């Protein structure tokens, strides 16, 4: 399955079917991050059930230093 993750086209293994498993795949489960799927924010309690499908545009953002 191919998704666009942070602007980059990526092939994901079959076991990635939800946002939760996507985070596990990239070892991001414990990170302070915010996720947007197809322009809509995915709230944390929904990570486990929110599906990831081919063609989805997913953004994973976090806080960095800034003024």
């Amino acid at each position, binding site marked *: 399955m191919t998704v666009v993750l942070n602007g980059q086209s990526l092939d994901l293994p079959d076991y990635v079917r939800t946002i939760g498993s996507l985070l596990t795949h*990239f070892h991001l489960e414990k*990170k302070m991050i915010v996720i947007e799927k197809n322009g809509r924010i995915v709230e*944390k309690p929904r990570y486990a059930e929110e599906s990831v499908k081919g063609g989805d545009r997913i*953004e994973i953002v976090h*806080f*960095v230093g*800034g003024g």
Partner: protein
Amino acid sequence: MLKIGNKTFQSHFLLGTGKFKTLDIQKKAVEASGAEILTFAVRRMNIFKPDQPNFLEQLDLKKYTLLPNTAGSKTAEEAIRTARLAKASGLCDMIKVEIVGDDQTLLPDPFETLKACKVLLNEGFTVLPYVSDDLVLAQRLERVGVHAIMPGASPIGSGQGILNPVQLQMLTETVHVPVIVDAGIGSPADTALAMSLGAQGILLNSAVSRAKDPVKMARAMKLAIEAGRLGFEAGRIPRKAVAVPSSPTEGMSAIDQ
């Protein structure tokens, strides 16, 4: 005391977290500044390097209030999206609305800023817009309900200090929400001047993070903010065109001729 929306702070210092040489220096500078509000930017994560050190993850979040910015936005729509992403972190409901209208000077776009502020206020954000030192714009923003006005003293990162103290004083004397000078501060003298003109807070980043000794500069800025604020509250003497002696003019013991 600085009151922004429903929150109160002892410190009038808001410190940016960009461009520090190391996380260790940054931590010490934050400590030395006494700042209770720290600004951040929202950016894409490098998902292939999730273990890159991140300052936020090393902070005691009970001690600090986070003020994410919408830096990088050029339209209200972009700023609103960034603000929503920041709020979805569950870490904060304050937002510094920063919408740049000119790439060269990084001066803010007043029209897009006003538009974004209206939407974000409706969504319950505590909104602090970065703006030029324009009095009428500040009044318009105050009328829609922003929680502070954050005029630039001079262009972002320029360190040119308070280019227009007259305009800044008019702002602090006119608007009823806190005026927080944001951008352009170069030295503790700039900071003290801004505070003594009635600013209720200073938001700066480069002046500390790019200083030769950021930790020492953080402390210098803290002291300058306190000095400036005290000076403002104490009330400076009016300027006079001529000298006025401080010592009695009568009762001089004269030499007998």
